[in-house]
């Protein structure tokens, strides 16, 4: 992948995140607060992204490994932990990285903690002798399913 192409993709993605409201934690928490004064705006982000994404990914299906349908405890537990963190602060990984631009100390701390969290997960998985999530080890066999939906961003 050419770095300039990657930069432009990141730029369009980042502009979309900013315009959509995903980079504003208060907006995100307003969307997640279904029990209070609910702001449904971010449902439109999902609708827009998946609505157009569906056709792109259909066209791209020969370029990608087939999507994985494998379910396991790590997927559910990991997603639950992620959801708790998202609900606590209102940042998910993309908007948190975009927020680095503002140099806000708390955003920097969030990103640092996020990186520490990924390293901690890797450490625990390695200690448990199960680092299959990190199929990028040289020579390691990579499950096709982990390559597609699994290795997010691989």
């Amino acid at each position, binding site marked *: 992948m050419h770095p300039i192409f990657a930069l432009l993709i990141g730029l369009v*993605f980042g502009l979309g995140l*900013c315009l959509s409201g995903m980079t504003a934690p208060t907006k995100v928490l307003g969307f997640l607060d279904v029990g209070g004064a609910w702001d449904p705006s971010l449902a439109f982000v999902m609708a827009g992204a998946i609505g157009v994404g569906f*056709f792109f990914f259909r066209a791209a299906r020969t370029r990608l490994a087939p999507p994985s349908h494998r379910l396991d405890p790590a997927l559910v537990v990991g997603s639950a932990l992620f959801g*708790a963190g998202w609900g606590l602060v209102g940042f998910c990984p993309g908007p948190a*990285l975009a927020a680095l631009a503002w140099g806000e100390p708390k955003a920097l701390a969030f990103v640092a903690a996020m990186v520490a969290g990924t390293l901690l997960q890797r450490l625990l998985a390695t200690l448990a002798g199960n680092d299959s999530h990190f199929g990028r080890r040289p020579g390691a066999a990579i499950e096709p399913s982990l390559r597609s939906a699994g290795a997010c961003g691989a």
Partner: protein
Amino acid sequence: MSIDWQNFTPWASLAGGLMIGVAAGLLALRSGRILGVSGYVSGFFEFDDEWTARLALVAGLVLAPLLLGAVGAGAVPDLDAGWATVIAGGLLVGFGTRLASGCTSGHGVCGLSRLSLRSAVATGVFMAVAMATVFIIRHLA
């Protein structure tokens, strides 16, 4: 439940969502890659031949708010959470997305766009838990 009409921005959110879908879709179409930010975060320490490309994508992501700021658009996000909550939230997001191999972009946008059951379960779980977390903090605690 009541609707917060004052902060409701359906058109900006839809337009932003379309841009996100185009970015993820073009990346898949042109280079056969999944746009997954949690993967870029953990991949920062994996110095393989895609490292530069991942870093360039993140650079574009950080450049976007700067460009908007330069033309007087976009606002500095307001983080209400305290320091301890910010740190705890960051740890949970990093640990959880790595364990689940994806986040809002990889599972929520890319995975759902390609009708992956795995991503549908992940998205359902993190949305439900995030909503429950906000409910507990705002209405029970």
